[in-house]
């Protein structure tokens, strides 16, 4: 069975144009975004740019007041994208999701630094590998909808599989509760001096995103 769409002509199957993007090209885009906008992938209370800086976590004392203050820093790096079939392994961590039509999985390595207050008092680093399952669809209103459905963690320092399963369960429940989603306007997607293109259909299939377009020459 082929693992990517055929690019034998005719390539265009509907409307004026078609774009096929291999899943590895999306990983290249994410790596580029990390270089261009590091603050988007860096979040915490210390050693992060002001735009991503937040207050440390304060744990209250049972007797009143603050018991302990924990500084934290979360950095995402090393990206991969998997479209159906689920067949990408990063390190030893295989994409765990059974991806359905319209679903994609995004991998990232998350480095979490926890520190005392002041930061120099103590510091612990935990490296988490994470696969995120998302649904992607193109609405008839010209918006691209991304929704985070599930997450699966792998922590090198933790060998207890029951603990990992419990953590994954907590994260899954959390995502089901908050349903994090993102909407991006994509019509018209690109406009230059000669033409504008408007996506009309998006299909995720066989390791590739398959976009159809209408072209307006101006």
């Amino acid at each position: 069975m082929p693992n990517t769409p055929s690019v034998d002509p005719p390539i265009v199957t509907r409307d004026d144009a078609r774009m096929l993007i291999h899943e590895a090209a999306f990983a290249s885009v994410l790596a580029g975004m990390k270089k261009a906008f590091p603050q988007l992938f860096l979040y915490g209370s210390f050693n992060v740019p002001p735009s991503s800086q937040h207050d440390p976590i304060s744990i209250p004392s049972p007797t009143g007041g603050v018991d302990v203050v924990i500084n934290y820093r979360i950095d995402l790096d090393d990206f991969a994208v998997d479209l159906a079939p689920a067949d990408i392994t990063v390190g030893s961590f295989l994409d765990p999701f059974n991806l359905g039509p319209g679903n994609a999985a995004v991998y990232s390595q998350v480095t979490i630094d926890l520190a005392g207050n002041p930061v120099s008092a103590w510091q612990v680093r935990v490296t988490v590998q994470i696969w995120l399952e998302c649904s992607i669809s193109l609405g008839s209103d010209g918006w691209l909808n991304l929704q985070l459905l599930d997450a699966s963690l792998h922590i090198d320092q933790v060998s207890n599989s029951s603990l990992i399963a419990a953590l994954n369960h907590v994260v899954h429940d959390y995502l089901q509760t908050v349903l994090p989603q993102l909407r991006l306007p994509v019509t018209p997607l690109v406009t230059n001096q000669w033409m504008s293109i408007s996506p009309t259909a998006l299909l995720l299939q066989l390791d590739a995103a398959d976009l159809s377009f209408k072209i307006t020459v101006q």
Partner: protein
Amino acid sequence: MTTFLNPNEVVIAIRKASTENLLTHILESISGANPVFNVSKCGLGCSLSISYQVREVQLHLATPEIVVDTLNLDTTLQFQLSLDFSNLYDCLSSILPLPPRCLTLCIPFTNICATKCLDLGSIGLPVAIPLSFSLSGLYELKEEVVIDDDGQPYWHVYLQIDFITPLVLDVARTIQRICDAIASELPWPLSIVAGDLCSVFGQVFDVLENAINTLAVELTDLFFKATGGWVGIQLKFAPIYKLRQNAVPGTSNPAIPALINSLTSVINSANELDVRFLLMPAP
């Protein structure tokens, strides 16, 4: 044999009708002016610039080439000859024993002086030479990486002429443009006479044009066909489109870093414009 999408590959295909419409639109918008040279020495100046505008385009795709049925290009060579006699005199006086062009008078026993120079004037001779070309023929797309004015590497996709049907000056059109220019300068009724004269010239030059066409077609055959098709005239000065090599297409300000490798643009066997490249992580 079926070909599949490769890892990191992006394939963009545009239908025949849309590509023809788009290419026609792009070619019709080609116009500009470029200086060719501008030199000046000893008061003698000489400059040449060329302005160009595509007047009419009709094309269709026939794999693997773009068949341009009509592509009329109007160009005007602006030749300017100027002579500054004062500068020329100064230049010559350094070689020949000529009397000075400037006279300086001072009041005795003071530092007060006045200099008066003779201005010999200057003349300028502008000559506009309109030339029109018919560039219908067979074209294909080529690409190369070029460092652009902003210092960034870009993939430039441009046309290569593989064969021009009549590789000639469009004599009739050139005469028509010259006559139009003359007629517009002359007062009535001379403008009407100019029109009549031009129509006679046009008939004479039609004969000449046919002869030139015949010669040019034979030369074109010799140039393109006899080489087995490996010779082509690359129109690199007028890229059809540009794609930044070190950024994700469509991103700018700031651009998202990436690396575009192995860009190819062809008219595929279904007469689609078929653009393929590898989108790799930025090094």
